[in-house]
């Protein structure tokens, strides 16, 4: 148990500072850049922005989820870090579960914070912002889980970074449909479905990711 806490602290320190320099900041900046560019592209008409802005926030969040993937696991696999944890009796499933929590903490909450200035840039009203924030709260764990599974699957591949983007987009479509769908229906049903998808994804990630790490080890 104490090794799990130690591992979580190390993962968080790496994702927020030092090693992954930018691993947390880059998706947020990318997210804000999309929100800033969109009014330039479609024109500043307030009613158009208010109607489509929530959807753009969701698309930006989905694309921002691709950015941290290439460095999420690759370096630790290269330097035999996971091997040494296995030798110390920490199963790959536990390692991946801890990494999922750390990855979501470094990705979800910063994105939800950035959604506030993004909503300002897009002229979203308070009710829409609330739906977007709830949707992101429900959806970002799912995005983090998909991203981590893909990072584990592509860890041994050349060009894995480019591939992971292509793999994430179709897999994230259900999250986008229900999460962004809640904006037009205005109901909480879409958000509840997004949360359900996220929970399922988060539950299978440790096992899928652990199996992928073992497969990469056996080459």
């Amino acid at each position, binding site marked *: 148990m104490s090794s799990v806490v*130690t*591992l979580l602290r190390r993962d968080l320190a790496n994702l927020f500072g030092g*090693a992954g320099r930018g691993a947390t900041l880059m998706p947020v900046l990318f997210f804000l850049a999309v929100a800033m560019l969109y009014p330039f592209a479609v024109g500043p008409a307030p009613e158009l922005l208010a109607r489509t802005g929530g959807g753009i926030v969701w698309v930006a969040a989905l694309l921002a989820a691709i950015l941290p993937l290439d460095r999420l696991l690759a370096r630790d696999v*290269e330097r*035999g870090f996971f*091997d*040494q944890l*296995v*030798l*110390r009796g920490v199963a790959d499933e536990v390692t991946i579960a801890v990494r999922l929590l750390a990855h979501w903490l470094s990705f979800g909450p910063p994105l939800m914070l950035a959604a506030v200035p993004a909503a300002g840039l897009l002229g979203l009203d308070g009710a829409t912002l609330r739906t977007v924030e709830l949707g992101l709260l429900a959806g970002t764990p799912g995005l983090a889980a998909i991203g981590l599974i893909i990072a584990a699957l592509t860890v041994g591949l050349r060009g894995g970074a480019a591939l992971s983007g292509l793999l994430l987009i179709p897999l994230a479509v259900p999250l986008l449909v229900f999460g962004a769908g809640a904006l037009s229906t205005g109901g909480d049903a879409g958000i509840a479905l997004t949360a359900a998808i996220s929970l399922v994804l988060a539950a299978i990630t440790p096992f899928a990711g652990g199996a992928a790490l073992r497969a990469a080890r056996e080459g």
Partner: protein
Amino acid sequence: MEASGLTAWELFCRRGDRLLFGSLDLWADKGAAIHLVGPNGIGKTSLLRILAGLLPPSLTHFEHPELPARGSLSWQGSVGLLDGNLPLDEHLSLGRALKFWRAVDGGTADLDRLGLRPLLEIPVRFLSTGQRKRAALACLVGQGVDHWLLDEPLNGLDSDGVTLVESLIAERRAAGGVVVVASHQPIALPGAEVIDLRDHPR
């Protein structure tokens, strides 16, 4: 009869489509040493990873239905592996990077003896090859396990370092540990059993 530290039967190793070695039996009493030899690519590193439990000890591959899939491996005690990797965060200073493994293992190596004390403030990425090997040794010693698997432990080490590794191995064996070494460089392993993987083709 002495207590056995390592028992392994019918080990097979496949990398890709190639069978590297097959039907390898290994056993070692407590305090014994095994020296693995053989040309590059024969499977020494793979064998060490099998012994570490990182690769399966048997072939359950459908491509080789004619081969037995009953490889078994058992250690009496805990095992540590020193391979070509350094499992430390490159951007941290050596002292802080080692602190992570100290927290996981609950023990630490004698840094003065390993010659690492003056390097604790230096980021891991600036360490030389020999210093990295010493840092990896610190992780292994700090792990406090019974048995050691060493993959080219002398790579990059100066003559002091070689003597240090040899004395660390001797101490581990004296404490009842089994030490399995794969090394191309001459290494003093008194009474070690030499296993040439060329004798175990498929």
